[in-house]
């Protein structure tokens, strides 16, 4: 079982072989857990996110919603990344309020005088920027689009991108650099401003 590829293991699992899932989890547990841990720096929370990630994976695989577009581990990391973002979003909405504390993790009530979240106008501007950026990406060569999406939308490190795309880190760095230069050119030629 250990010598089988991820695709084969997924296929076997979808046909009812539970042992294939065990192999898949054991094969990728270190890489995925490390990825999660270094984003949140809390071992218990990392275990929770790891568990939620695989629960989602299990449901999606059983429903037949996995399509073989990329590597399994990258897909798993993307799910974990989204769960981490969800966690921090939920956490920011549940700030404990106290009047005095600067010594504990709680926020002082005076910190709340300045509303940190975006107002509706800022949200509209952010959405507009994202839409413009996605439209501009379509003008880049496919390989540059890919690295930009992996780096800035999926939050992968250069090393992870290099592993995923079978390129060296230097090539990855170069490709992101050229992509950014090209994006700047497109912005200048079309008078697009992406700042507030």
């Amino acid at each position, binding site marked *: 079982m250990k010598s089988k590829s991820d695709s084969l293991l997924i296929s076997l699992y979808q046909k009812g072989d539970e042992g294939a899932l065990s192999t898949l989890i*054991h094969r990728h547990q270190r890489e995925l*857990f490390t990825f999660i841990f270094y984003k949140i720096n809390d071992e218990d929370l990392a*275990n929770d996110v790891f568990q939620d990630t695989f629960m989602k994976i*299990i449901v999606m695989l*059983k429903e037949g919603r996995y399509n073989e577009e990329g590597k399994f581990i990258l897909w798993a990391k993307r799910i974990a990344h989204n769960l981490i973002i969800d966690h921090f979003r939920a956490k920011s909405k549940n700030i404990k309020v106290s009047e005095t504390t600067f010594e504990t993790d709680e926020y002082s009530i005076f910190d709340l005088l300045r509303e940190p979240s975006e107002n509706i106008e800022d949200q509209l501007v952010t959405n507009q920027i994202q839409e413009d950026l996605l439209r501009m990406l379509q003008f880049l060569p496919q390989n540059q689009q890919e690295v930009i999406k992996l780096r800035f939308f999926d939050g992968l490190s250069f090393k992870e991108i290099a592993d995923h795309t079978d390129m060296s880190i230097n090539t990855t760095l170069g490709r992101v650099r050229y992509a950014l230069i090209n994006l700047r050119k497109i912005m200048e030629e079309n008078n697009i401003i992406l700042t507030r």
Partner: protein
Amino acid sequence: MKKNDSLKVKALKPKKETIEFLLNYSKSLEIVKTKAKNYPISKN
């Protein structure tokens, strides 16, 4: 000699219980497919 814990390499992997939970979760999960939607249900 006193051990220097800071030099220990931390094993970054999930707890055994987490893995066991996931394998049991998978075994107990069944997907009921209808025309409109898929429903994950527990076999237990």
